[in-house]
């Protein structure tokens, strides 16, 4: 009987997965989240240490597929920057990313009472890969073609007049929200002198931690949990916090299945061993 646990049909597994995710989003439980002191806290403290009028660059380097994990981060960090009076320049290494987040970011900015052109600007996707960004280091306007996402000239955007180069004198930090390549690699390789903060999809976290130690990154938000922690730090519990319940349940489900599978496996192995005698 027990060894059947080693061979549960995939479809039954899948059904349980769906249930574990749907039930909590219909009826949230609300578990508290603790703050990661090595990853999330340095990120928060870095933004918190910026002064009013500093400029940061948001790099949207992900596509709609990673919306659930990274967009809550973008929103939470935006909110924090707004509170500190930090100016935001949104740019994108991923074309699809910049277009699908455009309206989301706009809505959030409106909610936070930020004025377009003064408090923040969305310069859109820039084609030409790293060559473009490298050009923007010294000649921001030329490299960025002098126009924002809606084809408005930089001339008409007061914030852009303060920005002539993508250099440490102008930008206090680059905040890269990334799910792959091109992503943080561009900044690590070509802009090592500007402090880099990253929001990572959780799959990339393990391979990125080494950059924290070498100082190539100043802080890192890890997946939805990182977003939930950030929401807690800025004191505005939002979508990420809600979805964490579904996360919890589904994680427990995976662990349960692993345990069941192993019970089945070990029982089966013992019985086979007996059969051998």
């Amino acid at each position: 009987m027990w060894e059947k646990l080693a061979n549960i049909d995939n479809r039954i597994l899948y059904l349980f997965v769906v249930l574990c995710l749907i039930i909590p989003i219909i009826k949230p439980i609300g578990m508290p989240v603790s703050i990661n002191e090595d990853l999330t806290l340095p990120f928060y403290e870095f933004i918190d240490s910026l002064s009013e009028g500093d400029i940061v660059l948001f790099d949207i380097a992900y596509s709609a597929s990673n919306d659930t994990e990274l967009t809550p981060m973008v929103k939470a960090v935006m909110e924090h920057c707004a509170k500190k009076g930090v100016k935001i320049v949104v740019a994108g290494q991923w074309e699809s990313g910049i277009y699908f987040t455009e309206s989301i970011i706009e809505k959030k900015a409106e909610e936070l009472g930020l004025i377009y052109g003064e408090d923040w600007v969305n310069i859109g996707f820039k084609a030409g890969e790293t060559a473009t960004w490298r050009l923007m280091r010294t000649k921001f306007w030329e490299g960025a073609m002098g126009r924002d996402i809606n084809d408005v000239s930089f001339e008409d955007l007061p914030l852009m007049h303060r920005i002539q180069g993508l250099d440490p004198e102008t930008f206090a930090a680059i905040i890269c929200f990334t799910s792959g390549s091109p992503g943080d690699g561009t900044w690590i390789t070509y802009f090592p002198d500007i402090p880099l903060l990253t929001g990572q999809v959780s799959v990339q976290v393990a391979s990125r931690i080494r950059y924290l130690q070498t100082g190539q990154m100043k802080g890192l938000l890890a997946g939805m949990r990182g977003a939930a922690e950030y929401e807690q730090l800025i004191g505005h519990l939002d979508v990420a916090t809600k979805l964490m319940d579904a996360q919890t349940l589904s994680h427990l489900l995976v662990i349960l299945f692993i345990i069941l599978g192993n019970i089945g496996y070990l029982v089966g192995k013992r019985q086979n061993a007996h059969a051998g005698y």
Partner: protein
Amino acid sequence: MKQQVPAILTTVMAIIMFLVIMLQPLQEMGAEASINRWFQMMGTVALFMGIWNLTRMHMSTIKKKRTNWLFSIWLLIVMYGYMILGMTQGNQNTIYRWFYDALIVPISSTMFATVAFYIVSGAYRAFRVRNSEAAIMMICAVWVMLANVPIGDFIWSSQGWLGGMQGVANWLANVPNSAVSRAISVGTFFGAMATQLRIFLGIERRHLGMSN
């Protein structure tokens, strides 16, 4: 002409590229940007290669009436229709974007989302205590999964000794893990160099249709 010349061209091109990146005077002339642009031009005129390959394969399926040949007809209709729409109207055209958002975006996201199911069935079947290595991998995976959700804090609080489950997971990620990741990347660097030098030194020429 058919094989030797391209083989020599490979090495010469590699040397040029190398020098352009290394030498300050060439950098100052903007040679790297010009060469990159030259190569982009070369690649961009070949943009119909993929369409050609797909057309060839699906036409042959249709001609031979192999299984799913009706789907092949559908694919060609969609491909040429959508391509002509995009090339004549531009990729920001409303109708073009509508179809993009209605089909490519949700299908891509859904495909990505199904990975969650496969992770569950994969973990269920693979994480068995067959040997010590499999057991270590399983324990670490389970540990991190617990630490990543709030329940980990209830089992072993992050305010407690060693920073709790999360603390241990962080230590593993920060110390041995990043050492492993760095060591693997050192190996990868050498492997990649060796692979490229094989072509550079002309002993690997399979891409030019030569046996070694």
